[in-house]
């Protein structure tokens, strides 16, 4: 296949980061390369408890196709997941379970709160429902909607990709991050 033929297909490559280019070499920051690799291979861990989960099923399926963003593989074990997607109402009894799942994810890990319930408790302003998962785990991206459309979930994932791309490789060892985890009582 010649080069021009490849260009005709709609395969979208990741953009080349800023760097120093010369004849036969390319130099850039380690942060950028690691960020680029991480952002384009975020393996999701779906934590679907209600209707937002149904929307996520559509997001995973062929029409919306989350695989386009490098999230082909759904991970149902936290050990190989990077991105925890919490979709649905989290009851207070569910909170410790969610927390345990988050804690057992391998570093680095990111969290998206999908939908009103996960973000703030939504319409369930009641004694039994956790008023937003950020009460128990740190959240990186909030996706509004009740439930959000698959496009919105994809937008949330793209926002997270931006965060991941710009994250320093040393962030997880920084005192700020340790303080953040300590504020959630996660060691």
């Amino acid at each position: 296949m010649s080069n021009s033929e490849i260009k005709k297909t709609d395969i979208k490559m990741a953009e080349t980061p800023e760097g120093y280019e010369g004849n036969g070499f390319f130099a850039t920051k380690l942060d950028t390369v690691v960020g680029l690799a991480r952002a384009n291979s975020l393996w999701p861990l779906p934590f679907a408890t209600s209707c937002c989960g149904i929307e996520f099923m559509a997001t995973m399926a062929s029409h919306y196709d989350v695989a386009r963003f490098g999230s082909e593989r759904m991970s149902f074990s936290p050990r190989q997941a990077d991105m925890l997607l919490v979709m649905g109402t989290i009851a207070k009894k569910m909170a410790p379970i969610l927390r345990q799942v988050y804690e057992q994810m391998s570093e680095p890990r990111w969290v998206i709160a999908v939908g009103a319930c996960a973000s703030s408790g939504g319409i369930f302003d009641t004694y039994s429902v956790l008023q937003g998962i950020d009460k128990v785990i740190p959240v990186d991206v909030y996706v509004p909607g009740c439930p959000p459309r698959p496009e919105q979930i994809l937008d949330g994932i793209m926002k997270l990709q931006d965060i991941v791309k710009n994250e320093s490789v040393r962030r997880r060892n920084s005192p700020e991050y340790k303080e953040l985890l300590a504020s959630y009582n996660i060691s």
Partner: protein
Amino acid sequence: METNQVDFFPIVMQLILAAGFVAATIAISNFLGPKRHSVNKDKNFECGIESVGNARIPFSVKYFLVAILFVLFDVEVIFMYPWAINFREMGLEGFLKMGIFMLLLIVGFFYVMKKKGLEWE
């Protein structure tokens, strides 16, 4: 063509490079990747629920004998299918041969019954 041991040097280099690349990437990613260990994190993953008891307990493998016997007699049945298709062509000779074959297995079957191999309790 004459070859001597020095000619294999590039292959050795390639092997070292291949093994070295694997070892180096594992080591470097181990070194670069952030890590965190805690009591909760290193627990077995049980879908977030507190695990109860120990997984290392002895349990009966009675089904093992049943499974092996099933495979044995299953194979016998598989042999009977081609025989059934070629029943006319093989004639009396085939019938006798299959008879001997099945007789041997039936003796085995009665042996299993006598040894109480199929009794579950």
